[in-house]
Every structure is written in structure tokens, then in C-alpha cells.
């Protein structure tokens, strides 16, 4: 219970941050050349000034910036994100359609990066400055320095065009309509390359942090005690070191949730996945500012949610956090 109340307090503290982001981005978008009505008129193939004025009145765009901001925030409180003129649907619907692909991609990449980063970090730390360490660290550096979208393209060349093992893009096969397990497998197959593309960069970061934090913990007194009790090395690592060394890794997940969401913009574009990131890109190109603002709101919510989970995990790994202060 104490854990929950602590994490809840952190959650409450993020509300001002959220409001700050919304106000900031809203005001920023006021500076954009052209508004929603301009975009709509362009789509309709032009129109006269009276129509434009009526439309502006209808969408409340003739009010002052502050009144518009007030309206927007008030609508947000009622979970109304406004209407997307480009898609002809409420923004909330547009985003809800795109959210599953992004969440799936992020969960898969994060799990992949965390799991392999952990294992490779432990292996590297156990053989520090020997060949496994050198090899793993070199690969880590390579993946860190590689542009993710470039890795994606090269993976398409090798695995989709040359070897023809995996599909080059899309979320599922649209020529056949699978159901149930067959559909799940199909989607999973489509997500292999995007997951690798987004995940390898973060794996490189995680393995470096894990290696460093393992080396730090391995030198602490309680590890020496465990060893002198006659415990074998594997059990020392699994029972005593791992839990302590994991703390920085967990912190990193929270810190990088936002960066990862940003990375999915590029990865979703490479693999033409119908996700939130691609929607963000499309709304920039089409000047669909309402949708763009909605995406900003939803992604900030996502980042805050991830941080909430991280807080819970953290307290579970390190009981001192809840007992202190």
C-alpha cells in the first residue's frame, strides 16, 4: 500500500508537467503557418472567404488564442481531443486506431532490449577485459552509433529482399484475412524486423549500463561475504548481485520511454506500420495540427504511465525506498 501511495504521489506531481507541455505545444502550434481551416479548404479544392469565416467560427478559431487554449483544456478534461479535419473523424478515434501497433512495438522492443541487454551485460562483466567483454562491448558500440532507420533498411535488404524470410513492412498480411492464432503469428512475423530495429539501439545502452553497474556491485562487501561463505559464483550473481545491479537499468527505462516513443516515429515509417509515430509524421506533413496536439497529449500520458510502472518496480526491487522517509 505504501508503495502505491508513493508512486501515486509521483503520478500526481506529473499533472502540472502535463499541463505545462500542453500549453507550451498549443502556443507553439499557434505560430504554425496556416490553420485547420486552411488545410480543409485546400482539401475541398478551395472556397470563398465567407465559408472560411463560417468554418473558423464553427471550430472556434475566431476567438483569441487564450480563449482557444481555455476551450481546448476544458475539452481535454472531458477527454475530448477535438476533430481531425483531415481524417474526418474525432482525433481520439484516429489515435485509438493507431495506438495498438505502437504499444505492441514498444513493449516488444523494450522487452527485447532489456532481456538481452541484461544477459550480455552480465556476460561482459563476468569476463571483464577478456575477449567476450571486448566482443560484446564492440557490438554494443556499433549498434549505438548506427542510425536505427538505416539498420532497418539494411535488414529489409538482407531478410526481406535477399533471403525472403520476413515481410518488408506492414502490420499484417492484408491479402488474406487470418483469425485467431494464425493472425497473431502473422502479426508477430511482421513485427520481428521493426522490433530488432528499434530494440538493438536500446539494447546497446542497457548492456553498457548493466555491465558498469554489475562491476560496481561485484566489488561491494556483501558480495565478498557471500563468496567467503563458499557460495558458487553463479548463485552469487543470481541471488545477490543481479537484484542490486538492476536498479540503474530500471531507472533508465523510465528516462528513455520518451526517446523510444520518438524512435518509433522513424521505425514505423521505415516499415510502414500503422502506428502513432507514423500518424505524427503524417499529421506534420498534412498540417493536421489538432491530431498532432492529440498525439503530444497521448504520448506524454504514455511516458507518465511507464514512469508510474517503473516507480512500482523500483520499490519492489529496493525495499529501502518505501521504508525511508
Amino acid at each position, binding site marked *: 500500500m505504501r508503495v502505491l501511495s508513493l508512486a501515486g504521489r509521483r503520478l500526481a506531481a506529473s499533472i502540472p508537467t502535463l499541463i505545462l507541455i500542453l500549453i507550451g505545444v498549443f502556443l507553439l502550434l499557434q505560430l504554425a503557418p496556416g490553420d485547420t481551416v486552411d488545410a480543409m479548404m485546400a482539401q475541398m479544392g478551395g472556397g470563398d472567404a465567407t465559408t472560411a469565416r463560417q468554418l473558423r467560427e464553427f471550430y472556434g478559431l475566431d476567438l483569441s488564442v487564450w480563449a482557444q487554449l481555455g476551450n481546448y483544456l476544458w475539452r481535454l478534461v472531458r477527454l475530448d481531443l477535438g476533430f481531425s479535419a483531415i481524417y474526418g473523424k474525432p482525433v481520439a478515434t484516429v489515435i485509438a486506431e493507431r495506438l495498438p501497433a505502437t504499444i505492441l512495438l514498444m513493449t516488444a522492443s523494450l522487452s527485447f532490449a532489456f532481456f538481452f541487454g541484461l544477459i550480455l551485460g552480465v556476460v561482459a562483466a563476468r569476463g571483464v577485459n577478456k575477449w567476450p567483454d571486448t566482443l560484446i562491448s564492440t557490438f554494443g558500440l556499433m549498434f549505438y552509433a548506427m542510425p536505427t532507420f538505416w539498420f532497418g*533498411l539494411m535488414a529489409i535488404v538482407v531478410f526481406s529482399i535477399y533471403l525472403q524470410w520476413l515481410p518488408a513492412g506492414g502490420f499484417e498480411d492484408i491479402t488474406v484475412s487470418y483469425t485467431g492464432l494464425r493472425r497473431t503469428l502473422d502479426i508477430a512475423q511482421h513485427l520481428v524486423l521493426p522490433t530488432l530495429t528499434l530494440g538493438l539501439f536500446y539494447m546497446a545502452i542497457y548492456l553498457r549500463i548493466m555491465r558498469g553497474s554489475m562491476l560496481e556491485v561485484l566489488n561491494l562487501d556483501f558480495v565478498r561475504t557471500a563468496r567467503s561463505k563458499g557460495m558458487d559464483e553463479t548463485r552469487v550473481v543470481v541471488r545477490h548481485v543481479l537484484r542490486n545491479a538492476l536498479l540503474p537499468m530500471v531507472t533508465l527505462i523510465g528516462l528513455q520511454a520518451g526517446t523510444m516513443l520518438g524512435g518509433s516515429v522513424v521505425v514505423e515509417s521505415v516499415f510502414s506500420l500503422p502506428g502513432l509515430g507514423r500518424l505524427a509524421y503524417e499529421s506534420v506533413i498534412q498540417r493536421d495540427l489538432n491530431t498532432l496536439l492529440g498525439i503530444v497529449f497521448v504520448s506524454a500520458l504514455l511516458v507518465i504511465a511507464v514512469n508510474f510502472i517503473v516507480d512500482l518496480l523500483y520499490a519492489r526491487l529496493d525495499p529501502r525506498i518505501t521504508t525511508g522517509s
Partner: protein
Amino acid sequence: MDLVKLYVRSPPAVIGLLLLILVLAMAASADFFYPRDPLALAGRPLIWPFSNPRFLLGTDNSGRDIAAQIFHGARISLLIGGVATVISVMIGITIGALAGYYGSWVDTALMRVTEAFQTLPNFLLLLVLVAVFGSTITTVTVAIGIVSWPASARLTRAEFLSLRNREFVQAGRTLGLKDMRLIFGEILPNALPPVIVYASVVMAIAILLESALAFLKLSDPNVASWGNLIGAGRDVLRVQWYVSAIPGIAILVTVLAVSLVGQGLNDALNPRLKSR
């Protein structure tokens, strides 16, 4: 001198320095080897690398020389990376210094803003900025600087928090030095080394951000940027994959060089951590 000695003792750091010198040399010699506009048509489109001595790395889908674009692209990448890093670190240092030095409500307010920037996915903010201000090389560079300062602000703030009550600061205060003088003249020089080392990370990320933006065709289309070339090569990926592959390697080498040099500097400045 000790610093140099410590630095050259680590092989990865030396490799990084050599790679960085290579990229710098490419940037410097671009006008000498390829005096023509790198974006001008040079020959038949889609010549494979090493098949025509006139175009060592081949040509892209519209017949522009890839090697020329790589050499000139080195300039753009280093320029955008360098300037964006300076902007980002300057913002970070100012905000971090003020927050760490004054504490109380100044700290709370500034950290709220920092948090807001960290909660919003940086690439998304970059998209918004480019959508609003357009995508010339100047706006892109400034935008990258604006989205990547929070980490250096936090780093500077942490340094200031540990330094602000040291004796030399108190001595300065007793002498009647003004706040600004204390912050920028006394404390900042002592807080700077970790921030400078971190700047290499910022620069690596800035180069990657610009290439991603260019790949999405949202960066300046009128400069020879590596990301632009990868984006163009995407249309002919099926057969002429080299158009995308070559500039990607250039980005990889540059980011690797910057990271290795930063890591080497870090190890040389904190020799105790070296064994890690």
C-alpha cells in the same frame, strides 16, 4: 600532458580520434576533391560503386555523385552536430546553473520545465518545431539544440548543488562578488568538465537526429546531407541498395568516432574509473 598520455593509452580512444580526424579531413577537403555542387547532376543514374573510375562510389537515382555527397555531407553533419551541441549545452548550463545555485522556487520552476521537456518524446517535439518553423538548415539545427538540453541541465545542476556551499564560493561571497560573477566566474569552471564530456553524447545524438529528420524528408533538401541520400536511396532499395548503404556507414563512423573520443576523454579525466 598527463591527460594526453592517459588518453593515448586506451586503444578505442585512439581509434576514435583517428576516425574523427578522417571525417574532419573529408569535411575540409570536400571543396578540393569535389569543387562542383554535390547536388548537381554528374552522370548516368545508378552507376554501381567501383565500376566507373570517375564515380568511385557510384551515382544515386538522379545521377548525382555519391562520393561528392559523402564528402560534402561530412561538413553538414559536423556543422549541424557541432552547432546544435553548443546551443543545447549552453541552454542546459544556464538552466542547470540557475536552478542549482538559487535553489528553492527557481529550482522547482526550472526543473518542472526540464521535466516537461523530458516527458515529451524529443523526436516528436522536433517534428512539431519543424512543422511550425519550417526546415531550413538553421531552423533544424536550432530545433535539435532545443530538444536535447535537459540532460546537460540536470548534470550542471547536480554539480552546482555540490559546489555552491564550498569554501571558495563562501570566500567569494564574503568578498562581495555578485551572483552572476560567482555562478559563471567561480562555480561554472569547476562544474564544467563532466558537462563537456557529456557534450560528446549530445553531439552523437544530434547527428543521429538530423539524419533521421533528413531521412523522413523533413530536413533541408537543399544541402548534401547523408540522411537525405539514405532517404533518396530508399526508392531504389530493392536492387541498388548501395545508395542507402554508403551514407549510413558514414553516419555510423562519425557517431562512433564522437562517442569513442568522448569516452576516452572521460576515462582520461577520471583515471580511477578506467578499470571499469
